[in-house]
């Protein structure tokens, strides 16, 4: 039996039933990774030996009939911008090529606490800035469905690892769609939680007011399982919100009759690929057939979301990345004449072009004379975008749309056109700006390339979108036939 083809929930069940050991599970995934990595390139670093050690400890626990966590025995890929104690964490950048964090991110502690097994750090766009995982300093990750195409980004490695059966679960992060878009491109489920639901402590920051750690799984239940493990208030994250703990796996039940879904017309406009739209409309029909009520709405400020996003995220990023200066850690240039030179050379030599571009844009937006017109203006537009969502959620349970406006594109196709690359995010960024929750669930293939259905929920209403996604998943028919 190929253990790598099983879902996380199935694996854990087999473990509990003592049909299979944790060591066997990990071994089979290590083998799979070895098999796939030369073509997929999802991992920057793998942690096989340590993973096996952890697996042995879990097997001992089971042998002693001790209680085991909800992620027991499950190999998990971690996006390489989440710090792992003693394991290199690079953010896909030359700047942190050799950085070994002396501490664990809160979510890592939680995964370990639930007996999850960290098997490797996955590839990503440098400092999470990108939509294709092409800006990684180390390698380009390939889309498992078509090795000449991108897996999406910035959490491309995490999405590809799950899609290629290297791991059943992985963690990614979002600032403007970096979990949903690669989920869509790779044909897996990706959940972006409400801002504040999951601790950011240990997530190397891109944009502090937008970042959230998200989960990948091959089905909705798996992604929900991982969300359960990582969510919850954290005293070390001042933006963390205290809410009653919810079991998201309980939302994977039937019955969405009467749920009201909004279709924003701006999300189905001209810029969206026709074949993508078609698959999404089919999905909408499935939901309708299950009793959901669909209505077209307008989110009038959608057109400004991308500009708003690129100003706010780059402004915060320009400040968050200032600590990377070659003084206390990270890359330090070999040659420089003075302090200025040390800073300039260290940063210039180790940051990629896209990172530099965004730092520059952010610095510009915050600089003297421009703050009002850019950063502050964007924060005001953000209020208007959030209002659009708030108003919608007064009447509707969820918003439904395509996740990405296009099918996965070829590697290199948009690498030289930043604006064209940024357009990949137009359907996802509003969610981050509003702090809402959202997910992407596969809804079909166009010429073998996956299409993702996006469900957006109000803040802290993950249960609703998980329920909708689960019901859709159960009733969409054979995914390969879609």
């Amino acid at each position, binding site marked *: 039996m190929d253990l790598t083809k099983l879902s996380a929930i199935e694996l854990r069940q087999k473990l509990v039933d003592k049909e299979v050991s944790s060591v066997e599970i990990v071994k089979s995934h290590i083998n799979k990774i070895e098999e796939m990595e030369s073509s997929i390139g999802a991992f920057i670093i793998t942690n096989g030996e340590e993973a096996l050690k952890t697996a042995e400890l879990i097997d001992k626990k089971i042998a002693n009939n001790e209680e085991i966590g909800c992620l027991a025995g499950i190999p998990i890929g971690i996006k390489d911008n*989440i*710090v792992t104690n003693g394991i290199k*964490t690079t*953010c896909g950048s030359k700047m*942190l090529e050799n*950085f070994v*964090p*002396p*501490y664990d*991110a809160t979510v890592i502690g939680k995964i370990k606490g639930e007996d999850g097994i960290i098997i490797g750090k996955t590839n990503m766009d440098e400092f999470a800035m990108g939509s294709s995982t092409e800006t990684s300093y180390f390698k380009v990750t390939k889309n498992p469905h078509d090795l000449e195409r991108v897996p999406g980004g910035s959490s491309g490695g995490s999405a590809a690892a799950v899609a290629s059966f290297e791991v059943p679960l992985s963690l990614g992060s979002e600032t403007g769609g970096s979990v949903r878009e690669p989920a869509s491109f790779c044909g897996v489920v990706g959940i972006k939680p409400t801002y504040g639901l999951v601790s*950011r*402590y*240990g*997530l*190397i*920051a891109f*944009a*502090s*007011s937008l970042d959230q750690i998200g989960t990948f799984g091959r089905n909705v239940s798996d992604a929900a399982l991982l969300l359960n493990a990582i969510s919850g208030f954290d*005293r*070390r*994250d*001042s*933006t963390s919100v205290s809410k009653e703990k919810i079991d998201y796996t309980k939302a994977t039940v039937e019955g969405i009759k009467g749920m009201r879904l909004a279709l924003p017309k701006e999300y189905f406009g001209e810029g969206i690929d026709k074949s993508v739209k078609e698959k999404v409309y089919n999905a909408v029909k499935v939901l309708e057939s299950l009793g959901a009520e669909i209505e077209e709405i307008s989110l009038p400020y959608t057109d400004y979301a991308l500009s708003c996003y690129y100003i706010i995220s780059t*402004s*915060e990023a320009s*400040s968050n*990345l*200032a*600590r*990377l*200066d070659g*003084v*206390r*850690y990270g890359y330090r240039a070999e040659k420089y004449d003075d*302090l200025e030179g040390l*800073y300039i050379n260290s940063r210039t030599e180790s940051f990629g072009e896209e990172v530099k571009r965004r730092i520059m844009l952010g*610095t510009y937006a*915050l*600089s*003297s004379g421009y*703050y009002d017109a850019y*950063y502050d203006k964007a924060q005001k537009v953000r209020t208007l975008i959030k209002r659009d969502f708030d108003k919608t959620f007064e009447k509707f349970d969820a918003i439904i749309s395509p996740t990405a406006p296009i099918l996965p594109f070829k590697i290199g196709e948009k690498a030289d056109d930043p604006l064209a690359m940024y357009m990949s995010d137009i359907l996802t960024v509003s969610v981050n700006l509003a702090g809402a929750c959202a997910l992407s669930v596969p809804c079909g293939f166009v010429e073998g390339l996956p299409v993702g259905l996006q469900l957006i929920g109000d803040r802290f209403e993950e249960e609703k979108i998980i329920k909708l996604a689960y019901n859709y998943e159960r009733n969409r028919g054979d995914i390969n036939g879609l």
Partner: protein
Amino acid sequence: MAYKTIIGLEIHCELMTNSKIFCSCTTEFGGEANTHCCPVCLGLPGALPVINKKVVEYGIKAGLAFNSKIAKETKMDRKNYFYPDLVKGYQISQYDIPICDGGYIEIENGNGPKTIRLIRIHIEEDTGKSIHSEDGGSLLDFNRSGVPLIEVVTQPDMNSPEEAREFLEKLKATLRYIEVSDCKMEEGSLRCDVNINVVDEETGVRTTITELKNLNSFKAAVKAMEYEEKRHIALLKEGKDTVRETRRWDEVKNETIVMRTKEDAADYRYFPEPDLVKMKIEEKWIETIKKNLPELPHDKKERFMKEYDLPEYDAGVLTQTKELANFYEETVKYVNDPKQVSNWVMGDVLRRLKDEEIEAEDLTLKPKDLAELIILIQDGKISNNIGKKVLKDMFETGKSASIIVKDKGLIQISDEGELTTIVEKVISENEQSVTDYHNGKDRALGFLVGQVMKATRGKANPQLVNKLVLEIIEKE
């Protein structure tokens, strides 16, 4: 030609909390380099700040003590610039909504009370420290990175270096009173930057402001301001102006030196700190803090005047620091003569503090010990003069008054018989003085008393000697 000096101050004070402002590392001074650090105060990737409630409380306390308006809602902001001791490449500070708005401190400037207005008080984090290594490099220690500070900014209301010094003393005393900061400039827990310029009152022409930084004591600050005052006036007299620059004080050369200015008008790109959310300061919280505020210097002074029946001058001197005031009050508990105690504390004790350049809490002498001494004098066991000598001994050796008096045999001679013998001897050796006295020279009495005191090496009870000499002379 009338020239008016205009001085504004920007003071940074380290707060006396146990842990740092955004993490739980200790703020304890000393410690091996880089042993009081964590991901947050090292600015490691992924670390996030969590604000220390006590820091906010101390900010409110300071605002209340200085009559500021406390914000109902406040936030933190990022001040972005690059420097090796600034771990994140930005300092978390406060920009447009400081925790305290306005306020004032009253000083005495010789002509009466003067109000020095504050612009604001805000809370922020401190940076790490750098020292030079032997090979010319820099060594960085981040133990101090993240230590909480308040920044107090004044209006340019001071018009002389002396007024500025008065202000700093008052600020220091108050902050120490309310136990918010120990304000030790030499240790770096109080730092003061000065903005100074001069205006020609007749023509209205004013010089460009000079900024003074890296002043490491009140003395240095005053000297620097005095120097600048002169320099600005000299330039005005020549019809010239100063250049916009930052200077420091050079102890050795006794002059201000231009510092290498980093960049003129740095663009700090302030924006609200996105890793923290807005803070609410409830009225109830402010009330509780107000209620628990220690007695402030002014109120203590008033109380001393009333409770101990002291003149304003005495009360003022005694309450200049909380420790001195405590020392006084403790002593009075043992000795029922507030004015006597006041004299001793204002006189010999304060002099000792100034001579040794220490603070009241550093004294090895305890209130009980001083009380014991005063009681010995009250009981007539020793004279006041001997008492002063004994006190000096007590400071030096740490021994108690009674032990010193015993060891040195200083007990006052009050035995009439014994004294009569000595008086008679002195009188017999100074016939001329007796004659002088009878001829109306009253000073001769004093001389004779002095001789008796000399003969007894000061131990004779002066009042008794006086009485006896008079008695005996009169008889003759």
